[in-house]
């Protein structure tokens, strides 16, 4: 092939990748739901969290405050924002206090007679002459009050004002003050709003959509008035942190790419090799995405991020090929000579990753598919596609002046004898294990939210808004179960007195539970049974009205309503569609696959979880600690990952054994890797880092890199020029990886820092140890006086 044809093929390959990338980006469905990365739930709490809730209702809340103008302007903007968001499909509920203006008009006509079944107002006293006489005297006084206009339209159908009793029972105890008809904070400087999303709080993609929609709607509402919108809540935080992480990762990516180009240039002084070097990795990424999408119909965002980290190893494959090229040997021959070593590394890494496939966690399975397919494609591309496209008369890295100087310097390092070396290693490894195990502080970090911390100031704002709005606690929920909706509602009703007592005692400031809005059918039927028959009611009413200033016959609609209530079939959750309650009740009744229903109670202003838990236990309910539950899931997750890793380590050694077939050769390859893992753990723990799954995955990456380094050093034997080429290859590989992950290691975001730090320590440790253990000393006959 002429150079021109070769370049044409390289560009063709690149072109195909660009086309494929465009196609993939069009069709790639990235999921952000973290549940894909959670193991199968085992306890009832975990099942509730994973299968049913997706998250507590409290964590689907976004709290908002508009400030920076006079009250009228703020109120108007609050109204405009609410109107704009009310029709958004993704938003289950948007509230700003103005709902109260619509008040009773918001309750559909057909449901109004149900007030006699929903309200507890008549539970103590039957609807007889005494009650009516008293009510009518009260209504007369109401009419005579300055607020008489308010009650006048209600009177004919509702002389006991049952609908107001109901409205008051529904009104949250700690609702914020209203100015100009909308919620304001206590100081009256901020208009407050509340949004509940349909999607889970820990679905960052869905939350990003909602947050974007809210910001756009506010920009529209605010115009150039100079007002500002403050948004807090789990969703808003995850979006903000996600954005910050992505921006920082992108910045690091740009710097890293520039650094990589520079390194390539320094190493090979060839634009074509730079271009060709990109191809295997890019092909690997696209093949991995295609495989996952084909198998799972979509891909998890975390799989993509982790996967790219893990297949970063593949960037080393072309480097090994390029550095081992030599004059007089066509590149395909070089590739053939390297293939066995390369394949050993690839296959053992792939086998290690395959253990993820059996972890029982969907996200990890995707990760396994992505990585295995990606690495195989990169290796095959390096072996079969890349070599024919390279210059058949290449330069020789062994001629490099710098690499010779480096080799001489390394060889000049005094090394202990074999026996003393082994003893030293054992001693160091023992010390490292001791540090890793004995370092103070917890070994594991189970609270994943610490990896992406919300700024203190934002948390404080969230706490303040939550207090102002009486919004429910994000962490705790009460749950009570029943065989069906009716049973769950009945169980909740038994809980109501305990909850009221807790409010009274100050353990909570308020609560929301479905039964507060929608009593069980049994309760509704009992109330129905207590309503008087039409004739009896008419007689009682006539007697009560007779000596009052009210005109006779004024209360005819009341008689009709009570009659309707007597004959109605009890109201069920499904009947609430189109009412204000539709936004509240269904979210608090959660059905599992088998038809069992869990009624949830959200708690506001939770002061004393222990007291609430004690009361809940006594009343047949459970206080769910969502934080603890998710941490227990993380623990279970880690257990599975650790088991998979242990198996992976065994398989990896077995693969290397099969490939090398000699104990001392296997030891040369495996020892540096194993030692680096221990050393990395010791360093991290020694500096007080609590380990997370991000550290674990990065540890695996480091081990995979180390395996390749050791395999290549080991392969070289004592041929001086080949040693120089291998040294060249591994210096280039190591410095590229160290550059990228070193940049991540100094990131301000803990999750990026966790990955970067672990991988950087791993790369450096593996490089040094592979150099010392796996690499043989130069043949003294060829060596330069070491």
């Amino acid at each position, binding site marked *: 092939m002429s150079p021109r044809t070769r370049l044409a093929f390289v560009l063709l390959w690149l072109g195909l990748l660009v086309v494929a990338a465009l196609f993939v980006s069009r069709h790639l469905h990235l999921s952000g739901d973290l549940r894909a990365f959670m193991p199968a739930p085992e306890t009832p709490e975990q099942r509730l969290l994973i299968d049913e809730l997706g998250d507590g209702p409290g964590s689907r809340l976004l709290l908002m405050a508009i400030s920076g103008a006079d009250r*009228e302007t703020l*109120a108007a903007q609050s109204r405009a924002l609410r109107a704009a968001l009310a029709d958004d499909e993704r938003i289950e509920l948007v509230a700003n206090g103005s709902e109260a*203006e619509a008040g009773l008009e918001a309750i559909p006509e057909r449901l109004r007679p149900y007030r006699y079944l929903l309200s507890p107002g008549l539970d103590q006293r039957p609807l007889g002459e005494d009650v009516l006489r008293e009510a009518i*005297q*009260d209504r*007369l*006084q109401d*009419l*005579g*009050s*300055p*607020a*008489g*206009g*308010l009650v*006048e339209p209600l*009177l*004919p159908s509702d002389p006991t004002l049952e609908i107001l009793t109901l409205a008051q029972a529904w009104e949250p105890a700690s609702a914020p*003050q*209203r100015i*100009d*008809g909308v919620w304001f904070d206590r100081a009256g400087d901020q208009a407050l709003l509340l949004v509940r999303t349909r999607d889970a709080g820990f679905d960052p993609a869905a939350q990003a959509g909602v947050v974007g929609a809210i910001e756009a709607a506010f920009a529209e509402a605010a115009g150039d008035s100079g007002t500002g919108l403050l948004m807090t809540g789990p969703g808003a935080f995850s979006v903000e942190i996600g954005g910050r992480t992505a921006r920082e990762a992108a910045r690091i990516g740009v710097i890293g790419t520039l650094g990589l180009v520079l390194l390539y240039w320094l190493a090979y002084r060839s634009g074509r090799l730079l271009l060709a070097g990109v191809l295997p990795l890019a092909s690997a990424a696209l093949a991995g995405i295609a495989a996952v999408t084909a198998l799972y119909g979509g891909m998890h965002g975390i799989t993509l991020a982790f996967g790219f980290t893990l297949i970063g190893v593949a960037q080393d494959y072309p480097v090994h090929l390029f550095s081992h090229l030599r004059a007089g040997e066509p590149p395909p021959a070089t590739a053939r000579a390297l293939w066995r070593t390369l394949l050993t590394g690839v296959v053992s890494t792939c086998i290690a990753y395959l253990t993820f496939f059996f972890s029982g966690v969907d996200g990890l399975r995707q990760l396994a598919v992505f990585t295995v397919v990606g690495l195989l494609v990169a290796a095959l591309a390096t072996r079969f596609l890349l070599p024919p496209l390279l210059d058949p008369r290449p330069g020789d890295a062994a001629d490099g002046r710098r690499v010779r100087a480096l080799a001489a310097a390394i060889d000049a390092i005094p090394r202990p004898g074999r026996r003393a070396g082994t003893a030293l290693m054992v001693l160091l490894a023992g010390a490292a294990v001791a540090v890793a195990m004995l370092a103070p502080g917890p070994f594991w970090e189970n609270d994943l939210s610490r990896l992406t911390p919300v700024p203190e100031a934002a948390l404080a704002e969230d706490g303040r808004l939550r207090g102002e709005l009486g919004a429910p606690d994000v962490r705790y929920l009460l749950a009570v179960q029943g065989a069906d909706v009716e049973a769950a509602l009945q169980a909740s009703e038994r809980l109501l007195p305990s909850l009221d007592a807790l409010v009274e005692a100050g353990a909570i400031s308020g609560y929301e539970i479905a039964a507060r809005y929608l009593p069980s059918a049994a309760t509704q039927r009992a109330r129905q049974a207590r309503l008087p028959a039409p004739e009896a009611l008419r007689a009682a009413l006539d007697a009560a009205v007779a000596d009052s*200033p*009210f*005109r006779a016959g*004024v209360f005819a609609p009341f008689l009709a309503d009570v009659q309707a209530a007597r004959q109605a079939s009890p109201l069920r959750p499904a009947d609430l569609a189109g009412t204000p309650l539709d936004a509240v009740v269904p979210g608090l009744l959660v059905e599992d696959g088998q038809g069992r229903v869990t009624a949830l109670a959200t708690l506001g202003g939770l002061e004393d979880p222990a007291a609430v838990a004690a009361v809940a236990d006594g009343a047949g309910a459970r206080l769910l600690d969502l934080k603890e539950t998710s941490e227990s899931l993380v623990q279970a997750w880690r257990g599975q990952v650790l088991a998979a890793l242990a198996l992976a380590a065994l398989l990896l050694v077995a693969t290397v054994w099969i490939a090398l077939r000699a104990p001392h050769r296997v030891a040369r390859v495996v020892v540096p890797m194993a030692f680096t893992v221990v050393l990395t753990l010791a360093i991290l723990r020694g500096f007080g880092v609590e380990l997370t799954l991000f550290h674990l995955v990065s540890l695996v990456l480091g081990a995979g890199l180390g395996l390749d380094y050791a395999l290549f050093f080991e392969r070289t034997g004592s041929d001086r020029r080949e040693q120089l080429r291998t040294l060249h290859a591994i210096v280039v590989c190591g410095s590229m990886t160290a550059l990228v992950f070193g940049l991540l290691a100094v990131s301000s975001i803990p999750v990026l820092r966790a990955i970067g730090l672990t991988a950087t320590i791993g790369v450096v440790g593996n490089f040094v140890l592979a150099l010392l253990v796996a690499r043989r000393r130069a043949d003294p006959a060829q060596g330069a006086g070491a």
Partner: protein
Amino acid sequence: MPAATPFVELRESELLEAPLRIEGEYRRPDAATLVREVRSPYAETTTLADGRATIEREGRSPRSFPMSRAPELAGLQASFGALLAGDHEALEGAYAIGAYGGEDGWTMTLAPRDRALARRVESISLFGAGDELRCIETLTVEGEVQRTLLGAAAEAADGAGAADGFLALCRGGAGG
């Protein structure tokens, strides 16, 4: 202005056989509190203070609720209360004010700024002479008028049961 003034109100409603005539006293025990005490035809005391309304009725325990729930009460506090207190700033904050007339007969019209109140009340007109407030006339958005006679006008209303007599007393034609 005196700290206590008698009032007479005539409440008209389609629900009633005849208009309801209510008599009692408005009091201002301190600058931040307005009390409306009804003596006839029933006994009831409404206290407006600190953003809350407390209603005491014979034989019942007092009920208390935030005034925001009944914008009319908030409006009363902001108009009548502010006027009694001579708090022009509070009045200006709650209403767009128009005033005309002279020493021997003046009218002040208040158009509510607060949305919640404005949804119910079109305007409140205050009629007086000299330093005495004689009458409060509330026009609802539905076009209904409620009149409260105060002070001398209330005393003069002893005999007046009909709406037209009230109108005359309110506007200061009779007894002024």
